[in-house]
């Protein structure tokens, strides 16, 4: 949270709110950020002690009344509860912070300044002022500050200013990651425009926009609010209809760019390349105004997205109400099994304090099924909490839009007191300000953590965020390293616009929109300027589409092999009876979600994506919506539809799969040589270890590759690789697990076809010799090896922005490809989006985190919160894994090794 860190104080758990023992002050990461939150007045003096707003602890007595309730008193209740208080490992109080104000920048029109003042903005927050200044100076800007810090204003002002300056000639395009966001913003923007009295119009353009309005908004929309999907499939391919917009395009505003990572982000980055190409064709060079949650390297992410380095504004000048963070670790029920109380059960226990009629509470779960289970729990308990069952609602993706709108407006009006949700409510859909957030498990990324936390306390009142740690390595890591949460972001965003699959699909779309030329066409010959501004000089040059060296080659391929393009001289023209954007999904997956229908009424009740379908709507699966249970009766795999019947089920289902990984090609490799017995090697000082250097290693050692299996490089200790793999996932069986007790009440087979995946993987290989030195070859070796892989997979989200579910694992004790113990961690999207490269780069961090998790765990011989339960990892699993990690981390770092291109074909 670089840049938005106020001084904070740590409260002794056992002590009361008056115990202000350790004011830790500023973390010193990022000087800019620190400076920003230190306004001239000095934060220390401005802040009341934590005891300052301390409420009457007896406020809890009025809990069941409908009176408004202060979050601070709820925190006190939690601290006072004899049963719960010991479970809180940390109360972190981020004190209120005054705003850091600045005068309006020079360039803003008095009219606009007046409008600001009428709205009560006498001054701007420092980050808003800086962002506006930079934007008016013609820079690309990325504002990365906390949720609710007024980022919207920072890009609204330059856009309005451009409209005033040009008398409405300047157009802008705003992109939001969800439809709901754009609807929200449109209303507020129109308020501004009306106030300024300009004859300008802003319109939302999405799938709901009626055809009759579309023509109007194309011709007269000064500000178009839309989303990446509409841009990709509707606007860009029909750019001639939007010629006015593109010719006048001044700003491209993109909200919440931290959500643009992975496949989706990589597709969006290419979509923006297409956008720029088209704008240039019509003679415009728009600037980008980006906003984001805080990021590890915002400039790099911005550059990945827009192809230019934006100016980063990360000094948050907004004021902040007091926030209390409570870190809750469920009690260890069985130290031998390492079993902690279930986080969902803990959430249920907490609900008696954090839910009530006098305030609004939001629960964030990480799984859709958890949403359903918890909603059901709380609805059942509602009368005891002074709530009506209708005041408790679930909300998640997969609900039909109408139901979602209903819950949203219920939250806004205050009619809904408790909502249980997933990340569906994480982004800025306006549901008003809530009071208490309970995170049932770490959401998987710092950005998400802060977004979820930002859902509460918008009114500058005290707010409470409780995070319940699960029996999960990352959660347990955070319990033992809570500062991770409050420090500067440490995750990298995976973004690879030049991913060949994505690039080639996007090049199809781009070529449909405008032809490509090997070089920019000579001005005057091929493209004589008829109307001046309509012709940009370099439009369509191949080099304008990112820096991949393969653009020419892909275009040739699309022309000669695939027949989509017509290559003519040094140009490529779209030449097929097709509309490519229709077939290219920004999410990377095929648009073939499975829709679930009610067997009785025939109504659609929800849907799941293709990948998820084989494990969630197989026949016999229990599908849950808002606490209701449906049993899937029939899954028509071919036609992507499932039929379910409503049942009263006392169990839910959990499906298992078998995974097979085949290596297609290896790309990068780092390795180190063995030195004598491993036991000694690991203790050798570094200088004694010979490096296998990338350059010199080529001649002296055999090139690794597919032939490796036969002729094992005897001098090698272990290697990490990146490469391409083919993964086959077969669903095998599903377990029936009883609600509440989580008792396994049976299992049945699943009969469905396999899902096939071509992707990139990070591989870890250990030579047979080293493996036997580490006793990996005796006893439960396979189980321990798998446990280690699982742990690495699960701690990966500490360093890359992904869910651990985005990574697939295959642990093989003797890989058929490498002939030795191998771990594959693969990107679970077609083609991969660079996660494997980030794993490769940060593998040492992963090993360290994994070791820390094992070291810090209180369990005896392994548990779900570290390596896995002893039944899964074997009796010697923990020792084996610890020895492996110690071995990997001791001694020399790995050195890059040249990796021969494997031309191997999949078959």
């Amino acid at each position: 949270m670089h840049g938005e860190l106020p001084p904070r104080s740590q409260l002794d758990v056992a002590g009361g709110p008056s115990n202000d023992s350790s004011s830790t002050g500023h973390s010193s990461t990022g000087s800019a950020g620190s400076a920003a939150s230190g306004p001239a007045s000095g934060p220390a003096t401005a802040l009341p002690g934590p005891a300052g707003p301390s409420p009457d602890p007896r406020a809890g007595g009025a809990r069941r009344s409908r009176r408004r309730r202060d979050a601070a008193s709820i925190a006190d209740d939690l601290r006072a509860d004899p049963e719960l208080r010991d479970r809180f490992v940390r109360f972190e109080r981020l004190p209120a912070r005054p705003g850091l104000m600045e005068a309006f920048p020079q360039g803003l029109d008095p009219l606009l300044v007046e409008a600001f003042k009428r709205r009560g903005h006498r001054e701007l927050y420092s980050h808003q002022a800086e962002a506006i200044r930079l934007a008016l100076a013609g820079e690309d800007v990325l504002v990365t500050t906390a949720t609710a810090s007024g980022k919207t204003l920072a890009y609204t002002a330059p856009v309005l200013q451009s409209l005033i300056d040009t008398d409405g000639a300047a157009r802008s395009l705003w992109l939001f990651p969800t439809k709901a966001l754009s609807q929200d913003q449109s209303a507020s923007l129109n308020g501004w425009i009306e106030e300024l009295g300009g004859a300008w119009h802003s319109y939302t353009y999405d799938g709901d926009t009626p055809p009759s309005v579309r023509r109007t908004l194309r011709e007269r929309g000064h500000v178009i609010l839309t989303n990446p999907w509409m841009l990709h499939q509707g606007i860009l391919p029909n750019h001639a209809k939007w010629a006015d917009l593109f010719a006048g395009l001044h700003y491209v505003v993109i909200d919440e760019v931290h959500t643009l990572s992975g496949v989706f982000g990589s597709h969006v980055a290419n979509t923006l390349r297409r956008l720029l190409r088209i704008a240039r064709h019509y003679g415009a060079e728009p600037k980008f105004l980006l906003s984001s949650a805080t990021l590890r390297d915002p400039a790099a992410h911005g550059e990945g997205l827009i192809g230019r380095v934006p100016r980063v504004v990360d000094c948050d000048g907004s004021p902040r109400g007091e926030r209390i963070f409570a870190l809750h670790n469920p009690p260890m029920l069985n130290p031998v099994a390492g079993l902690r109380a279930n986080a969902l059960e803990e959430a249920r226990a907490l609900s008696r304090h954090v839910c009530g009629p006098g305030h609004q509470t939001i629960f964030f779960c990480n799984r859709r099924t958890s949403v359903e289970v918890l909603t059901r729990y709380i609805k059942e308990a509602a009368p005891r909490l002074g709530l009506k069952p209708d005041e408790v609602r679930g909300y998640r993706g997969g609900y039909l839009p109408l139901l979602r709108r209903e819950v949203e407006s219920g939250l806004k009006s205050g009619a809904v007191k408790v909502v249980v949700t997933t990340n569906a409510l994480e982004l800025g859909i306006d549901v008003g300000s809530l009071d208490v957030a309970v995170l049932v498990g770490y959401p998987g990324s710092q950005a998400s953590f802060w977004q979820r936390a930002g859902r509460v306390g918008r009114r500058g009142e005290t707010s409470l965020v409780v995070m319940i740690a699960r029996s999960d390595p990352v959660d347990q890591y955070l319990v033992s390293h809570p500062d991770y949460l409050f420090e500067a972001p440490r995750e990298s965003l995976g973004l690879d616009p030049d991913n060949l699959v994505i690039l080639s699909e996007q090049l199809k779309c781009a070529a449909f929109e405008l032809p490509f030329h090997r070089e920019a066409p000579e001005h005057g010959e091929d493209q004589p300027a008829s109307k001046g501004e309509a012709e940009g000089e370099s439009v369509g040059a191949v080099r304008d589409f990112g820096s991949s060296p393969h653009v020419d080659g892909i275009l040739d391929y699309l022309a000669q092999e695939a027949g989509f393009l017509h290559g003519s001289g040094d140009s490529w023209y779209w030449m097929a009876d097709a509309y490519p954007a229709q077939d290219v999904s920004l999410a990377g997956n095929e648009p073939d979600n499975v829709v679930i229908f009610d067997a009785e009424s025939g109504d659609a009740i929800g849907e799941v994506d293709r990948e998820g379908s084989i494990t969630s709507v197989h026949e016999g699966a229990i599908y849950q919506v808002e606490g209701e249970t449906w049993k899937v009766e029939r899954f028509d795999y071919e036609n992507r539809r499932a039929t379910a019947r409503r049942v009263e089920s006392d169990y839910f289902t959990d499906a298992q799969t078998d995974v097979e990984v085949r290596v297609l090609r290896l790309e990068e490799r780092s390795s180190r040589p063995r030195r004598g017995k491993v036991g000694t090697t690991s203790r050798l000082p570094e200088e004694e270890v010979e490096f296998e250097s990338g350059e010199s290693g080529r001649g002296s050692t055999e090139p690794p590759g597919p032939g490796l299996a036969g002729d094992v490089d005897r001098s090698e200790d272990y290697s990490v690789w990146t490469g391409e793999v083919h993964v086959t996932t077969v669903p095998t069986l599903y377990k029936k697990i009883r609600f509440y007790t989580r008792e396994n009440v049976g299992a049945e087979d699943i009969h469905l076809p396999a899902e096939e995946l071509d992707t990139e993987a990070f591989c870890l290989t250990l030579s047979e010799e080293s493996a036997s030195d580490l006793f990996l070859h005796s006893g439960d070796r396979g189980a321990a090896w798998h446990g280690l892989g699982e742990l690495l997979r699960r701690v990966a989200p500490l360093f890359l922005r992904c869910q651990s579910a985005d990574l697939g694992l295959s642990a093989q004790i003797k890989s058929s490809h490498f002939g030795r113990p191998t771990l594959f961690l693969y990107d679970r999207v077609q083609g991969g989006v660079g996660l494997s490269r980030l794993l490769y780069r940060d593998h040492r961090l992963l090993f360290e985190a994994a070791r820390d998790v094992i070291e810090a765990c209180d369990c005896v011989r392994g548990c779900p919160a570290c390596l896995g339960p002893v039944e899964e990892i074997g009796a010697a699993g923990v020792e084996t894994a610890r020895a492996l990690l110690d071995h990997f981390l001791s001694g020399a770092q790995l050195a890059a090794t040249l990796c021969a291109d494997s031309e191997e074909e999949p078959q």
Partner: protein
Amino acid sequence: MKRETLNESLARLRREKPTPEPPQESSSDPKGGAPGKGDNLGVKPVDQVDSEIDGEIDDMAAGKGAGKSIGKPGDAHKPSSLTAEGAGPTGSRGPIPASKASDLPAWVQAKLKRRLSAEGSRRSQSQGTERPAESDSCAPRPSGDSSESMALPRATPLAPVTSGDPEGLADTQTELGPVCARTTEYARHSVHGSWELGEVAHSAADVFALLAADSSLAAVDPLKAIYLDIETTGLSGGAGTLSFMVGLGTFAAGRFDLWQGFLRGPEGERALLAMVAQKIRGADCVVSFFGKSFDRHRLEDKMRLHGIDPPFADRPHLDLYHPLQRLYGGVWRDGRLGTMESELCAVERVDDLPGSYAPAAWFDYLARREHRLEAVFRHNRDDVLSLVVLAAHLGAVRRNERSSGLSLGGPQRARAAGLAKSLAQAGRYSEALDYSHLALSPPTSSPASTPIFGQAPPEPDTRSIQADVAADASLPATRYWRARELHASLLVRNGSWRTAHGAWVELSQAVSTVSGGGVIAVRALIEAAKLSEHRLGEPERGLELCRQARQRAGSELGMRGRSRLLADLDRRQARLAARLESGHSQAQS
């Protein structure tokens, strides 16, 4: 224009790779399958933002499923794969040519190939159920990889192939490069179908304005119009679709000139469009078939893309599709140009290559393969000539005979019903009533007995519908009932209360035996009730009719707006009852 370069590159392509085939990219031809078009594009996750394709859909949807593009011959049994001569089997493709594509590392190519074939097989898998069975023995399915098979229809058995440039092309140098075109001159009395081209001169332009509901057409001179039809590389719209042939027809002294602009390659698009814009600007009016929804937008979009001012905005545009639909909709199996021209003007095409085959012909030409462009030129020519004779037909409908005195042909009753509706919408109720009456009369009326615009109508009350004239081929059922409704309401408009009342009551009885006629019956009863109450001073009758309507509406479960209607009826009934009550009490006192 760099013709050499193009030729060289084509030659290179030919050397290196005889038959590159576009893989199947889209499941169904969107323009071809208009009714399903929305589905084609719109099936997306509920919460995911729609993939709606901008603009074009709206336009197409407005066409309500029957443009010239819709249901083209061949669509129903479109060969789903190429013919034997279209392309070699995929196996003969050979290794990747050692050309520029070799810049791409082999593994990248392998990856792309895997990706493309995965895409293809998924697509064909998902379409498997919808694909019609092969109905055409001359279009064998290739045994190769399905992803490589051709989606585009490529041949009919009748159209011969040629190679190289089509004949008769001439280049005109312009400042934007050469424009290539074929020009054909026709004498004004040349015959197309059963009509002479020059007959269009006798059109009454006000009927264009009336039927197209567009007053800007009222003064157009069909001899100063430009007749437009284009052939494109696809029906989807969007920047990547090219109009590779633009047919423009104009009348000159004693002649009709057909100019067919043609693209030798995509590079020439700009020069061609500039010339097209210039030619259109020289005309008073544009005449097309479904062109307001298709041709105009294709040209306009591409003109904007190239910085050329589109010439359409201030120019009257007669899109024949809509007026013809108004007159003859529902009479034949569809409203396509081909249907209209053959039914109304006896145009018979020989060896026609359906428009949906055009893209493949041009792609073949570009790739220097054998092609059927000659047939595309012919198809385009016939389209343009049909525009002229259909415009002539339309211009003659109010006379109901041709300038030569020949009968106009075509279903007279449907035509009269269409005219009645248009006149009614224009507020010309008296004339409308005449046509309405004609629509419901036996179709034997001689031209002399048909009403003429502007003539004083006969006394309205002497005309009543003849109940024995029912729906027939000349006025299909759906339109027949609507025509009777219109007729009754026109009687009301013309003040013939008693006749109108009879017509409504008769209609309510006649339609009640027809399936789905309940809604009309309810409406008719309500109208009759209104007349009884307000015009004829018979509230008892009104109450009775109201009761009937209420009863009828009560049994029509699926009716739109039923609950509101029922509430209305209840109110009306109550009011009438109260009025009668007070009437009685007044009478008693």
